[in-house]
């Protein structure tokens, strides 16, 4: 148990380090570099934590991509920076490089059945990640919309009240 925890933590740290270096390649500077690289860490923590509850890779990828999208959107508001900066680095550890590679390896070895199996699985993972981004972005947009709407209504009501007072 303890050993597993240690291994998971180490993996998260490697994800963080990889994201950080990608941030340098993409020329992200200052505090934003740290915050966006931390997204990679958050993504993998979400992935592993979800694995404890639902040990199924596709669900894990979906949850992780929802978490990272929400993290990025809120960071974008907090740091007043475009969302892309955070979302790009957060998504880096979620790229299913392993299964893409194994699909190809089986294909080259002539194991078509296996290759097909892994390939469809990879496609499902990619779809899960895409769905995660879609749903999270929609939720955030809904949230923003409702906040501005409420504010506007409040504003209008106040104006009305002021008008009555006058």
């Amino acid at each position, binding site marked *: 148990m303890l050993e597993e925890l240690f291994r998971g933590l180490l993996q998260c740290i*490697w994800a963080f380090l990889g994201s950080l270096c990608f941030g340098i390649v*993409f020329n992200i500077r200052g505090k*934003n570099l740290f915050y966006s690289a931390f997204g990679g860490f958050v993504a993998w923590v979400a992935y592993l934590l979800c694995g404890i509850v639902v040990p199924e890779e596709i669900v894990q990828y979906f949850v992780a991509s929802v978490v990272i999208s929400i993290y990025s959107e809120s960071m974008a508001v907090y740091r007043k920076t475009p969302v892309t*900066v955070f979302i790009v680095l957060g998504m880096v550890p979620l790229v299913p490089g392993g299964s893409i*590679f194994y699909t190809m390896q089986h294909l080259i070895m002539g194991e078509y059945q296996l290759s097909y199996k892994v390939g469809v699985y990879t496609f499902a993972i990619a779809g899960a990640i895409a769905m995660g981004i879609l749903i999270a*972005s929609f939720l955030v947009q809904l949230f923003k919309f409702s906040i501005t709407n409420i504010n506007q209504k409040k504003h209008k009501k106040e104006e009305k009240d002021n008008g009555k007072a006058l």
Partner: protein
Amino acid sequence: MKLEEVLDTAILVGYNLLRNGAEIYRVEQSIVYICTAYGMQEIEAFAIPSSIVVTISDGRLSMTKSKRVLTRDTDLDKVDKLTDLSRKICRELPDYDTFKKLLQEILNGPIYGKALTYFAHAMIGLSFTLFFGGNYWDGLVGGMIGFSIALLTGFMKRLRANLFFNNILCGFFSAFISNILAIKTGLFHADKIIIGTIMLLVPGLALANSMRDFISSDTMTGLSRLVEALFVAMGIAIGVAFAMKFV
């Protein structure tokens, strides 16, 4: 500001945003906001990854300008600063010369040095080899391959080779070296090293951006970026496949 100066301002901001890897809706929105701030009516902004077209009118005359975007790279710091600039323009309405000075300042902004970039490539190779479950020896080889990929990409850029060929070459190189090492010494796991180093080439940004373009219903852009990402993936796959057949 005159009509043509407003048009120039808007399109320069949009062009530089797009060049440095911003999303399409941000480009179009910035253009519309800037033109609106200067009191223009009838603003039509249309952007796809390879070109921008803007038409504005001041109620009497109208004017169109289009701009091709030929080279693109990813410089997210500039995207951040340009977004700030477009907010500033909307707030303060500077004149044309001031704008030009501000823009030039951003475009000459700092980038990380060459040594640090190469080091970052090596660290990416190392981190992701370990991340995908290689041991420390694998990590070391992954780091070295990452460094070589950086050198190779730099060299190919100087030759003006196209991206597709570059990906084939880098994929081939990564798979070739790690396979040979794994077979000759038996100390390394070739698959882990290949997966880790390929992360350097995988089009993560293009894929994430294309999804976000689909959400904001820029289907054209989404499709073009998706196809771009698929082509990159195909290039890598061809390179790796060659190497694995070879060894």
